[in-house]
């Protein structure tokens, strides 16, 4: 039911995770962690502009921008020594950055359960990812989209 409302990019990520075994699934998460882009200067130099996500097990900060054309830009910051948290941020970045605001808002929080990571990482870590998504959506609403 929820799968139907995922945008195609995020759906592809979910499918990639579903297609491989446990070991490769962790490898895939590691790749997302490595692909997470660094902060642009305007945030790197003004870290206070980022919102902390205390639900994550390791320090994570994020920023959300709404472009004039209604698309969403996402920025994340997490230390190198927090690869799982970085991996989750990387998935959200790959799946949602540059997407129209309404599509990001329509992303069901439960999608984190479709990645097949429940038996590999602790459930509270998956909640951290859901919390990131929740905060992204809240920021979009606050910025006045939809």
């Amino acid at each position, binding site marked *: 039911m929820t799968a139907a409302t995922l945008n195609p990019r995020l759906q592809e990520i979910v499918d990639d995770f579903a297609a491989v075994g446990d070991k490769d699934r*962790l490898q895939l998460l*590691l790749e997302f*962690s490595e692909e997470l882009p660094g902060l642009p200067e305007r945030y790197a130099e003004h870290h206070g502009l980022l919102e902390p996500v*205390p*639900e994550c097990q390791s320090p994570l900060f994020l920023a959300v921008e709404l472009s004039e054309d209604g698309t969403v830009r996402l920025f994340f910051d997490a230390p190198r*020594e927090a690869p*799982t948290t970085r991996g989750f941020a990387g998935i959200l970045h790959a799946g949602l950055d540059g997407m129209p605001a309404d599509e990001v808002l329509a992303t069901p929080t439960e999608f984190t359960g479709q990645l097949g990571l429940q038996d590999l990482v602790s459930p*509270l870590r998956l*909640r951290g990812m859901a919390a990131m998504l929740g905060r992204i959506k809240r920021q979009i609403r606050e910025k006045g989209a939809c």
Partner: protein
Amino acid sequence: MALPYDHAAKFQEYAHPEMIVSTEWVAEHLDDPGLVVAESDEDVLLYEIGHIPGAVKLDWHTELNDPATRDYVDGAGFARLMSEKGISRDTTLVLYGDRNNWWAAYALWVCSLFGHPDLRLMDGGRAKWIAENRPVSTETPERKRADYPVIERDDTRIRAFREEVLGHLGKPLIDVRSPGEYTGELLHMPDYPQEGAVRGGHIPGARNVPWARAAAEDATFRSRAELEAIYRDEAGLRPDDDVVVYCRIGERSSHTWFVLQHLLGYPHVRNYDGSWTEWGNTVRVPITRGDKP
């Protein structure tokens, strides 16, 4: 074929200096035959982004637990796991990990249930190794399969079950959680909402000594004198006391178990791994709220 001990002056003060090694010692002995270094982390990907060269990964979540029952692997499961990692019964096994060695201490405690003869913890854990800019590798070592014997788990010496804790009420109990969890204000550890309980508080009679008090800022253990000031002078533990430690799921209390049993030498220390997630959810067991034992 045990490796030499780490003769660092700080460790000689401890009751069992043979149970602990420094990052220097590990760096020096990395290539010695008979040694296996294992990383045990809370973050399941940390090992993959770089570990001590040659170290194997020991995942508490997926490898040391039974996949279905809330329990650890049995003798056959443990033998299979150790053999796969290239660990034999006479291997010197050094454990280290993230978060002040919580999971490494937990893994060491589980290995102790199977009586592995030579277990050591690397003081300061992963954070210290990284902070010292020591080499890391992303290569998973290909270790030759070993032949670890099937040893039945002994749950009688250092592990306590709920019924035993009920029978222990009135004797020394150490609750190593944060003060907010101890008093009952918090139903879970800050930031760990999944591992909660329907009742907040502590086991009656338990004293609150948060685990972190045993650790210095750089994640190493405090000196023997500092530890005695905390556990003997403040918490009032006497040399022959039968002590039960607990936290929320048993990992933070493994850290304190290690301190009491191996650094201070208390002979009867048991870890109640059911901890608050079991006690705080169990029907009709007594609990105490507030900041008094």
